[in-house]
């Protein structure tokens, strides 16, 4: 953290130009409009949209791609293989427009990919990335990030925070990395006029209405529900698709697979989901989670208990994607409420 927060301002009219400039030195990943908004690598500032509450896919793809080559191999004449690790992108990347909830999810993902075993594929990209957050003033119905102590208008988990205050963005660096980037593009930023804090405060008014659930002892309250019939009807309703896990910014499960060609091949990892039956299916044919009930139970226990047990944090940032996109309206916030209030008891 930078001790002295140095606030700057950029006029809205100059944003596209700034983004264009960023694409020249960095891989710029920013929200792009398709049917819904998604974070994509962009080649120019004009591709970027800022008219969104949150993206359908979180920017986790930029660190933990849906499919990522771990290494390639080539056969040699001597029944052996030459293994060639995949070279990481040589350029630094900037994620522009990340919401505070998604930024927090990266902190949770770091806990997984760091530690005793360092996942260099994730961590290298993480190190090479500068996060430019966009403060969130108009959350969606399904948003409940304050539940997890996230201030949607704060820059706690980003390097730089942009706050839309009408005709300008208030720009604050919260890390050295962020400050360095601002310095590099200093020409775009001007000194604040003075009314910025006030404007921002006004915009934040709406946030007071945001859903904030009680998760104070949720992990403990989950424990007795294990195996209970509370999960039966949720399991019955669940279609077993991977929407909730794939859209979730904190879900990190993956599978590893091989490609086998005549000349060689490679090994890749790709997203996987605890909702899929094969996820835990062993070669012997045994499956410790044989049905949708046990799988959905795993998902909620992982989010609300197991991750907490291991890392001291809940594995949810309240972004609301799984609620918004679940085709059968399984709602984690409802489940949290029911667990917290004791309504989720086993009949």
């Amino acid at each position, binding site marked *: 953290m930078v001790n002295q927060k140095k606030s700057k301002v950029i006029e809205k009219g100059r944003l596209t130009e700034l983004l264009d400039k960023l694409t020249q030195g960095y891989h710029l990943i920013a929200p792009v409009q398709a049917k819904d908004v998604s974070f994509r690598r962009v080649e120019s500032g004009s591709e970027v949209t800022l008219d969104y509450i949150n993206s359908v896919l979180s920017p986790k793809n930029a660190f933990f791609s849906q499919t990522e080559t771990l290494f390639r191999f080539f056969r040699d004449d001597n029944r052996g293989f030459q293994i060639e690790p995949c070279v990481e992108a040589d350029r630094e990347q900037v994620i522009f427009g990340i919401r505070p909830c998604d930024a927090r999810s990266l902190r949770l993902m770091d806990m997984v990919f760091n530690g005793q075993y360092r996942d260099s594929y994730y961590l290298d990209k993480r190190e090479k990335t500068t996060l430019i957050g966009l403060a969130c003033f108009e959350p969606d119905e399904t948003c409940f990030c304050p539940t997890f102590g996230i201030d949607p208008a704060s820059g706690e988990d980003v390097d730089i925070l942009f706050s839309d205050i009408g005709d300008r963005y208030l720009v604050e660096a919260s890390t050295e990395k962020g400050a360095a980037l601002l310095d590099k593009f200093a020409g775009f930023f001007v000194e604040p006029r003075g009314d910025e804090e006030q404007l921002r405060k006004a915009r934040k008014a709406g946030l007071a209405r945001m859903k904030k659930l009680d998760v104070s002892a949720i992990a403990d309250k989950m424990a007795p529900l294990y195996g209970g019939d509370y999960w039966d009807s949720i399991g019955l309703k669940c279609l077993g698709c991977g929407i909730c896990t794939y859209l979730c910014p904190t879900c990190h499960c993956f599978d590893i697979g091989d490609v*086998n*060609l*005549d*000349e060689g*091949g490679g090994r890749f990892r790709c997203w996987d989901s605890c909702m899929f039956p094969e996820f835990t299916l062993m070669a012997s044919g045994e499956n410790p989670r044989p049905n949708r009930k046990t799988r959905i139970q795993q998902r909620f226990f992982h989010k609300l208990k197991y991750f907490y047990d291991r890392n001291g944090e809940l594995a949810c940032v309240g972004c609301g994607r799984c609620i918004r996109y679940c085709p059968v309206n399984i709602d984690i916030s409802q489940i949290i409420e029911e667990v917290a209030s004791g309504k989720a008891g086993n009949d």
Partner: protein
Amino acid sequence: MAAPRIGVFICHCGTNIGGIVDVPEVVDYAKKLPYVVHAEANLYTCSEEGISAIKEAIKEYDLNRVVVASCTPRTHQPLFRNACADAGLNPYLFEFVNIREHCSWIHMHDRREATEKAKELVKMGVAKARWLEAQEEFESGVYPAAMVIGGGVAGMSAALNLANQGFEVHLVEKEPELGGRLLKLNRIFTINKAPDELVDSMVKAVQGHSKIKLHMPAVVKAASGYIGNFDVSIDEDGQETSVKVGVIIVATGAQVLEPELYSYGKLDNVLTQLGLEQRLKDGKLGEFQNVVMINCVGARIPERPYCSRLCCMTAIKNAALMKEINPKAQVYVLHRDLMTYGVEFEEYYRKAREAGVRFIRYTLSNPPQVMGAKRVEAVKVYDELMDMEVELSCNLLVLATPLIPNADNEELSKMLKVPIGDGGFFLEAHVKLRPVEFAMDGIYVAGSCRWPADIKESIAQGYAAASEAAIPLRQGAVRVEAITATVDPKTCKGCGTCVLVCPFDAIELKESKIKGLEGKIVSEVNAALCKGCGLCAAACPNRAIQQRGFTDMQLLSMVNALSGKR
């Protein structure tokens, strides 16, 4: 299952393959393919030496899969499968790669590309071989009765042959009389005798045979089943009867073309050779002076390119006869080429010439012209040899027309599921190697329904078909190639798609009796009815039904191998 150990045998086929494809290069390539533990070249893999090389290699290298790259499985697969079996390897662990018909013979001018293609074909074969599985053949009984369709000489010969071997025979003839086309003939060529003697003796033998059941006049209305087990429904004089037989011989003969040429059908002194014979036989020919015969009428023309083979001899026969009846008559035979092969026929032709029959060659581009308004008065023809046009006076014009397929061949072919080839004649399984069998097991062919045949040939073919047909009858059982469908009852969801697409009603939905799946409705294949087409395997939504020898795994592995994937 032991790890695959594949042996690859690449045939030079003398120079047939080796002269085009760089066989040593293919062998080296094969050696490096996955699971290949041995690869060698053979001068002729199908020779005794080649076969023993396979057997030895199976033992020496402990092979559990064999791939031969040579000619076509349609002729040689049984040979190599037997070689494997002799060496103690299940014959279904053999895979055939065709690098002759499908490679060296069709790419003779591009040795490099042909070699590359041969390599890739071998690679695909090896990829499939890796997934081959041992199979047991299903055995099914053969009902000891035969059906012969057609009561001409071919059919009667076949029927008598089988009946004399002690098998029950159903002989189906559509006319009210046995004898077929022969009944209409006046004389038989080379021996110059009336056919009656021959026909009568055969008909008597047939009629008096306790093992032969005659259906006459009768036609086949429907047929179903498979070798050993056919159900044929016959319409016999308006009454439908059902007959069960183990084999079927098709000997339905052919008919003579009635041409629309040379004023035939318009002027009454124009006859076909058959018409002439009819008149001679009935003694209704009357007086004649100058006879002109034209050969190849309606034959060897673009619409009907084949040579009917019999007409030249018929024309010679009848020309000589005309000269015999009226030695003063001028008899001309106008021909395009004369087919008088072999000693006997050539001699017959010489005698006709000696008797004074005159032969004039014409060409298709310059055909004879018929002169005369109410009757044919003369025929103009451009004589190739003399290089001049001659006008022959004529009061009897006789046209030699070809045999053409029966109109109902198509109907019968659909009923029996046997193919019809070019021109509408039935098509045998292999022109050289399987001349009297159809590709459909248990159905055989003899006589002119397959190709114009003279009496001698028809009888020989009748005997040949009968002796082929006697094999399953005698053995009492046939083995079905183990390419039938199998169901994985665990993944089968009982949707019944396979039941709907199976052309043989070989699949039924039944309650499973397998432990752990009791009561589950799943598909069950009746191996006796399954003909191994694989329609079910392609239609099954989750691939719970597979065709042995052509599994998804095997086919997809070939596709992947071709695209450089493993």
